[in-house]
């Protein structure tokens, strides 16, 4: 009897999401919501950690045989493990934070129910091995996030959620179109069988067009320029823990992971797609940071920086793809992929932390405008330290984690023969530094305005959530070279992508 814990990663949050609305009118509903959510998030985190013992795991749902077209497979390799770790750790920290922060909103039961749905969807996206199943989980997570962005029902939030909804629906439609085209061209829906088909029968032109549809669809979910228009409105308007989840995990799991899986494992590595990814990444980096420098709204600034940092990751993926498709050195390609994945990991840690600290500042002072803040670190020490750690990380100051990942990406770009891209990376890093020096000077240092003399530190649960993420920021930077981080988490992830088309053999033969 095979007992695999993979389905539990989806079943536990789904169960929590379905049980919670039953208590909607019960007296102590908020406390029940807190307890159930913390319990679920904690169990998910423990399950994810326990997954790291095995090399890889395949589960054919319902015991359908691998030879048939119909079965759905769940497949976890190094890349999925990395993303599972990111998703569940950030979810745990954000759940702890939300327990206190959402006191000001209505109905914590419904909030946590939607939150658990979103986590279930994201977990499902990274563990599935079937294209249509990917689409279904993508939609579950997306619809939950549309509703969560609108949770406060203020006019700004509704407008942002509406814009996000329309653009997200367009993206999902394009993705489904691509899936239909792939099925028409190849007759398979399973990612491994698709990969095998592409190796033996080649990639037809319509399958390439399907790839372009996927770039549009998943690029929109992952906020690449020119598909980024929803992000600067949606992320600031959402409640702070939701902004942290959206920016920290959702655009990664739904956008970047899907792009990486598709163009490195399913499709044979092609230089055309690599060039497209490099181009998208470079444009996102530049435009994101240029628009961020001029912002005075703290959360809007962070949202634009998300676009820019995701540009780094996509750029790294594109460089890796370019090198692999030319038959170049796997060491250089591996370096580029390692940098990109490590930056993914780091970004979720420090960007979520930044959004949570902006939420703490808003909780205490009621404002998001940088010009109105000042000297908050004197009154709010925990928030101040966490915000400073996160700002230094994203700006790329050694020895924090942001420095290492950006450095690796820039070096890989130079080694792969793209000096202009490397230079662009340096420029964008510099502008990011400028931007966050501004943030620190206005929010943390400087004079404390009169009306904020009496602000107090945030409650313990919120602080705990932030501290967890801050510890990860510090630890990832310092412990980069030691075994647990490098060989257990990052290297298998990079190898999973490097194996490109061997993915098919691993799933079907194993």
């Amino acid at each position, binding site marked *: 009897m095979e007992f695999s814990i993979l389905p539990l990663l989806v079943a536990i949050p789904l169960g929590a999401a379905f049980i919670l609305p039953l208590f909607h009118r019960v007296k102590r509903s908020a406390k029940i919501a807190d307890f159930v959510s913390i319990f679920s998030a904690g169990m998910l985190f423990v399950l994810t950690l326990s997954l790291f013992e095995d090399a890889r795991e395949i589960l054919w749902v319902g015991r359908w045989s691998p030879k048939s077209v119909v079965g759905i497979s769940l497949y976890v390799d190094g890349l999925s493990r990395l993303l599972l770790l990111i998703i569940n750790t950030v979810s745990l920290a954000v759940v702890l934070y939300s327990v206190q922060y959402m006191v000001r909103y209505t109905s914590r039961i419904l909030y946590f129910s939607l939150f658990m749905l979103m986590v279930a969807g994201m977990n499902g996206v990274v563990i599935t091995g079937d294209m249509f199943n990917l689409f*279904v989980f993508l939609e579950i997570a997306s619809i939950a996030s*549309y509703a969560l962005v609108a949770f406060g029902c*203020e006019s700004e939030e*509704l*407008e942002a959620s509406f814009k996000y909804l329309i653009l997200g629906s367009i993206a999902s439609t394009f993705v489904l*179109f691509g899936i239909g085209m792939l099925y*028409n061209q190849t007759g398979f829906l399973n990612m491994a069988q698709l990969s095998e088909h592409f190796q033996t029968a080649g990639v037809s032109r319509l399958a390439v067009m399907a790839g372009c549809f996927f770039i549009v669809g998943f690029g929109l979910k992952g906020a690449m320029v020119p598909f980024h228009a929803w992000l600067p409105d949606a992320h600031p308007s959402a409640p702070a823990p939701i902004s942290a989840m959206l920016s920290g995990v959702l655009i990664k799991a739904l956008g970047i992971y899907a792009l990486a899986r598709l163009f490195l494992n399913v499709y044979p590595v092609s230089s055309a797609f690599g060039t497209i990814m490099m181009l998208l990444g470079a444009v996102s980096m530049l435009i994101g940071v240029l628009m961020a420098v001029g912002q005075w709204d703290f959360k809007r600034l962070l949202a634009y920086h998300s676009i820019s940092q995701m540009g780094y990751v996509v750029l790294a993926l594109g460089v890796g793809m370019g090198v692999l498709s030319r038959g170049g050195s796997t060491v250089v390609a591996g370096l580029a992929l390692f940098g990109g994945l490590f930056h993914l990991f780091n970004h979720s840690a420090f960007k979520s932390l930044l959004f949570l600290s902006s939420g703490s500042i808003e909780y205490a002072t009621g404002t998001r405008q940088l010009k109105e803040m000042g000297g908050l670190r004197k009154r709010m020490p925990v928030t101040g330290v966490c915000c400073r750690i996160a700002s230094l990380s994203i700006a790329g100051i050694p020895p924090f984690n942001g420095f290492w990942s950006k450095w690796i990406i820039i070096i890989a770009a130079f080694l792969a023969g793209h000096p202009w891209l490397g230079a662009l990376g340096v420029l964008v890093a510099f502008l990011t530094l400028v931007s966050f020096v501004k943030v620190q000077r206005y929010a943390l240092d400087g004079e404390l305005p009169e009306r904020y003399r009496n602000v107090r530190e945030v409650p313990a649960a919120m602080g705990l959530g932030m501290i967890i993420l801050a510890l990860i920021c510090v630890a990832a930077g310092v412990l980069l070279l030691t075994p647990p981080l490098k060989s257990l988490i990052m290297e298998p992830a990079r190898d999973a992508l490097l194996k490109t088309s061997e993915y098919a053999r691993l799933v079907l033969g194993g």
Partner: protein
Amino acid sequence: MPRELLPYFLAMVLLVIGLYAIVGKKNVVKIIIGVIIMEYAVNLFLVLIGYRSGGRAPIVTKTLNEDPQRLREFMQTAVDPLPQALILTSIVIGLATLILMIAIAIRVYEKYGTFDVSKIRKLRG
């Protein structure tokens, strides 16, 4: 125009019409209808790619089940049932998104007092 590309053309026409409605229209309700048209386009596409010409509906009847030879022939020539499962799921998802869109549109109307998208622009920059 080759026969196999016909589903693509038809679905593309609807997709572009839906996209035009989303991008070019100012009324929130018309934008929502544009999204619905795009979803219909994809569903239509999935239906069309499942079709095998001259095929029948993929339902196995009792008499058919008792004859293995005819059963095998039937399975080869009947219409492909896998896209039908995909379409059903896609319709459900479209319905859920539609309900959410309408709910948010109603609230937006209550907050802003208008259905005109160009006036619902508090966020900028």
